[in-house]
């Protein structure tokens, strides 16, 4: 798979030096993204899901260091000088963020913000860029795009602003779009529209999407493959069907059972006990062990590695034998 992968990440780690000690935000991530594939990254706050991809984009804070390897279309991204990275970023690989309110410059017209990218990366003239900007707004289904082109960001609603952000990200027709919690700040009805738009754009443009989110429902609808992240590492990786049908890691199972389902009301939710671990002092064994209902001696001493769990593309990092579809524990 490595040969034709669009993005191939191996053993990627991100560390931050803070006055209170070293924070191990990302610990040895491996990931392949094929062209046109939609990969979901699910995790809670502090799991390192955003930092992983900010590191790929060369956007981490100045006190952070990145080690390992991340090859994008054959180019090694880790350690790439900012000038080269700039050529890739925006043109072949784009990122959209959670907060569409702060990602746009408030004092520039939307048209300028769109055409700036084209003039810089593609060397288009201003008229060409404007025509392309208009097409881009049409593409993300902004109604009456012609008249809205000269408006300022504050004249757009939250959902419309996220559409503008997507339009900017898509201007140079990137091969990979990284969407970091793209709908978390939006209302559900708006979220449904943005997700629908992302799915549609992916089919039409054949671009790969990495969708970072905390919401399992979003992943279920859009992604082909899902990576569940905990304490800076993937604890389970699987195609979307098997992951939801027969989750193999206790954390994934816990997440799924803590979400209220429409088909069942009342009664206690099966919560995961305790708090996420402190990334400054991870335990020597499994990072999830202190919260795990199935923990046994080996979990405290030996960190589990990602290994095959039943099906070929289904990996988990857990010492347990596994779970059947009905939830019974295998030794």
């Amino acid at each position, binding site marked *: 798979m490595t040969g034709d992968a669009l993005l191939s990440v191996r053993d990627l780690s991100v560390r931050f030096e803070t006055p209170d000690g070293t924070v191990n935000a990302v610990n040895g991530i491996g990931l392949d993204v094929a062209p046109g594939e939609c990969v979901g990254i699910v995790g809670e706050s502090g799991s390192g899901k955003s930092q992983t991809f900010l590191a790929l984009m060369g956007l981490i804070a100045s006190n952070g260091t990145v080690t390992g390897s991340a090859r994008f279309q054959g180019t090694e991204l880790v350690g790439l000088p900012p000038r080269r990275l700039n050529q890739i970023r925006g043109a072949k690989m784009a990122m959209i963020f959670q907060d569409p309110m702060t990602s746009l410059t408030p004092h520039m017209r939307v048209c300028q913000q769109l055409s700036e990218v084209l003039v810089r990366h593609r060397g288009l003239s201003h008229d060409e860029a404007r025509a392309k900007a208009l097409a881009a707004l049409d593409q993300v289904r902004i109604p009456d795009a012609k008249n809205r082109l000269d408006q300022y960001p504050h004249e757009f609603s939250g959902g419309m602003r996220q559409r503008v952000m997507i339009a900017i990200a898509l201007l140079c027709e990137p091969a990979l779009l990284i969407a970091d919690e793209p709908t978390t700040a939006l*209302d559900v009805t708006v979220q449904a529209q943005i997700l629908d738009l992302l799915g549609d754009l992916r089919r039409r443009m054949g671009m790969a999407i990495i969708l970072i989110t905390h919401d399992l429902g979003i992943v279920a609808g859009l992604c082909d493959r899902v990576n569940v992240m905990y304490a800076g590492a993937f604890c389970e990786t699987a195609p979307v069907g098997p992951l939801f049908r027969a989750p193999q890691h206790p954390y994934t199972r816990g997440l799924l059972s*803590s979400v209220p389902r429409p088909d069942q009301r009342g009664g206690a939710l099966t919560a995961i006990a305790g708090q996420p671990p402190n990334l400054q002092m991870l335990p020597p064994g499994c990072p999830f062990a202190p919260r795990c209902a199935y923990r046994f001696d080996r979990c405290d001493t030996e960190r589990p590695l990602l290994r095959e769990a039943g099906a070929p593309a289904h990996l988990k990092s857990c010492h347990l034998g596994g779970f059947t579809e009905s939830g019974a524990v295998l030794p």
Partner: protein
Amino acid sequence: MSEAPLLIVDDLKVHFPVPQPGLFSAPRPLKAVDGVSFTLASGETLGVVGESGCGKSTLGRAILRLIPTTAGRAIFAGEELTALSEAQMRPRRRDLQIIFQDPLASLDPRMTVGDIIAEPLQSFLPELDAAQRRAKVSAMMNRVGLSPQMISRYPHEFSGGQAQRIGIARAMILEPKLIVCDEPVSALDVSIRAQILNLLSDLQRDFGLSLLFISHDLAVVRHVSHRVLVLYLGKIMELAETETLNRRPRHPYTRALLSAAPIPDPSLERDKERLMIGDDLPSPLDPPSGCVFRTRCPKAAEKCAHEVPALAARGAEDGSVVACHFPD
């Protein structure tokens, strides 16, 4: 639930004056809550669901008199709260508490956890001495799942889920009758969210609490509520038992909300029927004529622009009401 309801809200309105550009233009009213009526029984959870700007938080705060109401009444245990002065209101606050969305922002960063939880005791039971207060605080901390060892710590030393437990302990310390939960789990991680929801339902069972549970997340609201009230631009769109709402949503907006909420199951999520609605919320300063939802409604007709649909049973026999000319 034949006894008198604990809380009756009758045609409640909250309008904020919004200054207009121009030196002599009069301020225009922003109708955050515009004629909302419902009842809440003892021990019941009423979910209030709606998108940002629908007035759900304003409604909760107006009932607690944390913001002034423009018109209408809120009657709690037979007493009209909206007619009381600020000074008369203060003793009533013993029975009416609130839990906030952002757990850390709702805790004074300069106070220890013990002092924060004890604050309502200081106001309402000043006769308690320090040792008695401390005993009560420790007991309540135990009850909400916090170790009493943490009593001298400060809010910034806690994670979001624990901070929300502190907020719940503060609201519960006087054993109130009604708690307004304003998006209590929206800021929390999925795995912590379930812990807090379970804690709230335990407390409700043990203390016979009534909850007004405000959230934008229909899945959460459906899980905890007996009845659900759907709010849009300050008006009630639909009010029904949770089961009924789940099985047969009658207002197009409720149906849109239900179909938009993602389900963590690929086969259900990909095959479900979607009712997409436009995503431009009209300005609450300038709401549409007639039915406020008509600009985004797939069923909007001529009638909807002229006539405000009244909240009525419209053929339902189970007490549910809907404000739509063409309910399903």
